């Protein structure tokens, strides 16, 4: 019996080690592959950004460095176009208004449909995702006459928020739907109702606080979309940040202010992303 055991154990030990070694090598190869992919894609994204930053800091002479382009963000103006700073302000205002309108319209509607008219969910999803399939230029063609009709009201660029809400709908909807799917909204609402909560309280006090992450994601996506939008503003003859930058580049092709403003706009989006993820981490890390 002892002999059988020892004979049986010896060959068992060898193949037992082999997979560990193989696994180790495979893991190392996999890690190497990950690092290579990460580096290649990192450079792919980082190099244009570094170039942008460099050109925004390059002085009039090649090889010299200056903050002039950054200072110009606040003061740049040219004939035939509004001052740069005003379009920065308007674009930021547009981002805020679009995000707020989006959340106010979509969040309660989605919750209401989930809780009370579930049969409408598919229709809502279809409608919200529809703008993804419609090119911006087609939207412009459709919206042009409407904006022309109301042009005599001398509407501000801020009126673009209606179109931006439509454009941002698919992204915001997806983010919010993921948040809503992550909670048992029906049971939570029934529990709250049985405790005496009105529908308003159910939505505001029970469901929405459990969707903060999703709402922050929707906010980020909407803001990023508004900050980078060009086509619709350009064709509807409104000046937002991107249209302004385009106009500056057409008049003065080498103006460093284009690069500094673009970099600033990107940095703003990154900071927003950081703030939102920090807020998320804080919410998750609530001690208890």
């Amino acid at each position, binding site marked *: 019996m002892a002999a059988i055991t020892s004979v049986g154990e010896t060959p068992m030990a060898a193949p037992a080690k082999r997979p560990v070694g193989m696994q180790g090598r495979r893991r190392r190869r996999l890690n190497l592959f990950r690092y290579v992919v990460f580096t290649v894609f990192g450079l792919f994204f980082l190099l244009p950004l570094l170039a942008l930053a460099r050109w925004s800091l390059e002085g009039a002479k090649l090889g010299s460095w200056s903050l002039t382009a950054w200072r110009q963000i606040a003061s740049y103006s040219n004939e035939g176009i509004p001052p740069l700073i005003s379009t920065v302000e308007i674009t930021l205002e547009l981002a805020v208004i679009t995000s707020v309108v989006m959340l106010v319209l979509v969040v309660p509607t989605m919750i209401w449909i989930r809780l009370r008219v579930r049969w409408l969910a598919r229709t809502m999803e279809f409608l919200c995702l529809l703008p993804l399939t419609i090119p911006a230029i087609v939207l412009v063609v459709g919206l042009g006459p409407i904006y022309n009709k109301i042009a005599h009201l001398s509407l501000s660029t801020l009126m673009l928020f209606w179109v931006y809400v439509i454009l941002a709908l698919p992204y915001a909807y997806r983010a919010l739907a993921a948040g809503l799917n992550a909670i*048992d909204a029906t*049971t939570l609402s029934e*529990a709250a*109702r*049985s405790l005496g909560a009105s529908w308003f309280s159910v939505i505001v006090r029970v469901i929405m*606080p459990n969707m903060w992450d999703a709402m922050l994601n929707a906010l980020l996506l909407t803001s990023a979309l508004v900050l980078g939008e060009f086509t619709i503003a350009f064709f509807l003859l409104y000046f937002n940040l991107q249209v302004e930058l385009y106009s500056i580049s057409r008049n003065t092709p080498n103006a460093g202010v284009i690069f500094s403003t673009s970099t600033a706009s990107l940095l703003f989006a990154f900071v927003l992303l950081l703030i939102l993820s920090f807020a998320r981490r804080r919410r998750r890390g609530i001690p*208890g």
Partner: protein
Amino acid sequence: MEGLSRHYGAVVALDHLDLTLRPGELVALLGPSGCGKTTTLRLLAGLEDTDTGSITVAGRDITRLPASKRDMGMVFQAYSLFPHMTVRQNAGFGLRLRRVGAAERDKRALEMLDLVGLSTQADRYPHQLSGGQQQRVALARALAIEPQVLLLDEPLSALDAKVRAQLRDQIRRIQLEVGITTLFVTHDQEEALAIADRVGVMREGRIEQLAPPTEVYSRPATSFVAEFVGLTNRLDGEVSGGQVTVRGCTLPLMEDNVPDGRVVALVRPEAVTMASHTSAEASPLVGTVIAITFLGATSRVTVNLGDTTVMAQLATSDATALSAGSRVALTIRPDPVLVSASSAPGASEAGEEA
């Protein structure tokens, strides 16, 4: 609840259901899936609308009142604590909606948490609690608003067996301590029989029997109740002169006015006992043991009688003398039995479990 009906398309979930809860009692609704027990609870809570019928609480008609104004405390099958609130905030949520001051709200929330033994966990979040603890907090939250009726919708079904038994007893203790009228929905007959003052056995949207647990078990009103609650042997018998003869044993009938003729008698396993002698080899209740299930103080012995099998619940001390393949003679204790119409195919098969 009077004449309560609810349809989902062509499906009848509740069919003119009548149910009256006495103040301070715990009524358990028991029945198979789809029998309408949860629908009853949801109609009472106002989470669904009735098609017909009325619901009255303490003389007030609440049939058309929204859920938020019904003053019912409810504990759900799924974990329903608000994830973004602490245990204390959850327990005080209903009071907050009633605009109770923060100090008073905190005091009452802690009292309720103390009642369910969780006051030390007041500052934890739901995700930091076990399933049993979450359901206890849900109970505290429901009780904190001092509801007129407490509704429990299978609150123990997501828990493991040990926690379920503990929490079941705790619910009963708290219910008696608070003296609150409670409607408890479950598909677990052990749960229902263990804690309810009265058990309502439901089938196809109607209550077949509403009675104390012992009565439901020992004097089932219908064959469905007899078969659903506990284990039952279905044995062929012959009714004659107000008695039924089952495999040579004459038994009294539970119902009056049963016409003479062939029937199926519903006999509880505990009414089947070992005969004192084994000489009557030709007796219709002599057979071969095919399985013995140890249940603790008792054991369930399944005996093949040749044309059918029968289950007997015997004292374990008697059952230990037996083994699979043993020949055994049985007898039936002359307890009143329920009979149902005979001749259904397979009607005489024994041991149908609820």
